[in-house]
């Protein structure tokens, strides 16, 4: 597996973690909406970054 492929695996795992953080922050009576928003926002940002990263490397011909 190349660094490019492993980076995509890593970003996918990080997106899942950020989403889990958002869900974790909303659990129970003492839910924290700010932390949840940060978690879901970070998840969306990392998905967008992953797509941008793949397109950039494809455009530049990096395998």
């Amino acid at each position, binding site marked *: 597996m190349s660094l490019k492929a*492993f980076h995509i*695996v890593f970003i996918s795992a990080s997106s899942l973690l950020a989403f*889990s953080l958002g869900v974790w922050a909303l659990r129970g009576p003492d839910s924290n909406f700010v932390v949840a928003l940060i978690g879901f926002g970070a998840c969306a940002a990392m998905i967008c970054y992953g797509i941008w990263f793949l397109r950039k490397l494809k455009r530049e011909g990096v395998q």
Partner: protein
Amino acid sequence: MEIPYTVETRPDTGLNNVKIGIWLFLASEVMLFGSLFASYILLRIGSPAWPAGEDYLDIPLAAVNTAVLIISSVTMVMGWASLMRKKLNTYRLYMGATILCGLIFMVIKYFEYSDKFHHGYYPSTNTFLAIYFTMTGLHAAHVLGGSAVNAYLLGPGTKLWKKNPQMFINRVESAGLFWHLVDLIWIFLFPVLYLL
């Protein structure tokens, strides 16, 4: 006698020595941390009571550290991609940023550990803190080791770029794979120790 496949790939495996070597090493790392995660699960399910991570640990500080490591992975892969485009100066900037992120992680870890010791929390205090210090301590040692390799590849290691650029790119890719594994381990450690 020259060692074959140090740069070019073997026709039968499609891999060179560097790629095989680093993945064998990473497999041993997965087994090392895998055994610790298994120990954590066994200790937790075998314990009559288990504290919540937030009772002892600083979640916002750990979240910042998580973000720092994710950013360091991005800079690491961008550095490698810069080398693929033959841009050594851009690589230097990204690799410098990766090392800086590693150091920021260690400084935050230092403050986190200091706070624990200040409150009288040691590995001997209870089972949770014992496994916390073991796993995060071993992980921090890997961050230090990875930063040392990255520092070499930013400093004296760059001499190889003039002699054999492809070999240098392979070395940076290997360091990047190790760095990514260390970061991926933290992505598992953070929810397991701090959130669950």
